[in-house]
């Protein structure tokens, strides 16, 4: 059985206590709401996509806010840190990798961009908590596609839309 304590590592507890990029974003170009009806987790992600000098879409700014458990909040906080300044394409790749890791489908020994986010690998052994960790990433994906609201439950919405191979 998994060592659950491994999940509640210092870095996760720290991001839960002092979430980064927490709040609203003035004149966001994209935003989405994520909701997990089972536990009441509810977050919004707002971002500004801008074109860099090479005409590539980049995340110039990103914020989140909401009510959620520690796993969800820390995941959201670390996600914003990880994707800020990245291209949209790189962020989409990271979304795929994170979802694959949370569901136990990513080989962490193969080349990837997970980095510090590997602290969330333990959720793959806690099926009821996988949704907590991936909600922010689904919501970011929904925001990119300008879907107004996302949920981990309803099959027809963006939360269940296929995201790569994850």
């Amino acid at each position: 059985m998994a060592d659950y304590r491994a999940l509640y590592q210092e870095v996760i507890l720290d991001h839960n206590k002092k979430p980064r990029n927490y709040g609203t974003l003035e004149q966001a170009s994209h935003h989405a709401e994520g909701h997990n009806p089972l536990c009441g987790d509810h977050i919004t992600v707002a971002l500004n996509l801008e074109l860099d000098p090479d005409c590539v879409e980049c995340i110039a700014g990103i914020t989140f806010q909401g009510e959620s458990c520690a796993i969800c909040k820390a995941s959201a906080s670390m996600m914003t840190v990880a994707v800020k300044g990245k291209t949209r394409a790189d962020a989409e790749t990271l979304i795929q990798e994170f979802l694959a890791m949370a569901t136990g489908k990513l080989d962490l020994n193969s080349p990837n961009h997970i980095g510090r986010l590997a602290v969330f690998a333990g959720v793959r052994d806690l099926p009821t908590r996988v949704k907590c960790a991936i909600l922010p990433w689904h919501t970011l994906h929904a925001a990119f596609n300008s879907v107004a609201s996302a949920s981990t439950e309803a099959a027809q919405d963006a939360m269940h839309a296929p995201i790569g191979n994850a």
Partner: protein
Amino acid sequence: MSAVRAAFHPRSAPAIDVERIRADFPILQLKIDGKPLVYLDNAASSQMPQAVIDRLVRYQTSEHANINRAVHYLSETATSAYEAARRKLQHFIHAREEREVIFTSGTTDAINLVMHGYGRKFIEAGDEIILTTLEHHSNIVPWQMLAEEKGATIRVVPINDAGELLIDEYEKLFNERTRLVGVMHVSNALGTVNPVKQMIAFAHARGVPVLVDGAQAVPHLQVDVQDLDCDFYAFSGHKLCGPTGIGVLYGKAALLESMQPFKGGGDMIMSVSFEKTTYNTIPHKFEAGTPPIAAAIGLGAAVDYLSAIGMDAIAAHEHALLSCATAQMTRMPGVRILGTAANKAAVLSFTVDGVHPHDVGTLLNQEGVAVRTGHHCAQPVMQRFKVPATSRASFAFYNSMAEVDALISGIRSVQKVFA
């Protein structure tokens, strides 16, 4: 009310020998991550004693066939065991007649039976149904479906900060259009024991029948449907040390006879032709198709097991567990108990400051302590207390004082992680 209070303060109930009882439950010997299982999620589903497991094995090994059909030995053996289970349930809830006990797949199915069989026949546009804020979704959603279909209205009894129904407000909700009251006997989310007998008497004085959701009451206190004088009483087997997939709807015979069938099929008919079908008598009218025979027989064995211990003794032991847990938790800074009714069953809903209930649940699980976290299928209750979710410890007669201590020290270690 007095019957319920008596169950909580029995004068002569023999004390429970917890260690001896625990030996009856194989699953309680489990270790979770090397730690002894502390199972405190009994309001969601209880565990099964060896006597019930043995009865299921015996049935499947030497008694199984379809019931009410063939003349061969096995069919008659299975039929008589199934009907014997019905009589055990009848006596367990003190019903007047065995035909007043209908086997359903559970409480939800039982309530849906009342909605389709009684509600759709007797409730019309403009009529009103009274429910309470405490109800489980299973006693809300069927009535919303009916209200939408018929153009009926649902009125809701509010609660106070302790999680008790406001009986004055309940009484004010009645008018000439009130057709049915639906109320839970014991709240699954807060543990409140509602004064159903008093509420039933008030409704009956106005000619209104009452459906009681007894899913959380039957496992924990002596229930006497004749003393309560309820018109319908619904409960589940799997919260009563029985199998899943089985439950009971008790209904007064005259009411059941006046109702339309809910499901059509075999067993529920007297005769069938394409011109006219005549329905069977109760209870068979409401048991279409092959029922969960094994589960019903298993439930019969479960109530035998509980009766041998005695519901008064069970209620007294669980009350002692609740008092001990409540006293300790009340002294813990940063822990808030939701549901502080004067009359409670052994359900303890709580929140820990600064920690989401799901994190509480995951960390308690690490100590082997199983609690429920979430909204407990009672979102209106959560909205009333302005929380998205709670953690809930719910006790059974096989829980020990040492397990209460394990819960308390588990909560302390959660607070330490999040300090």
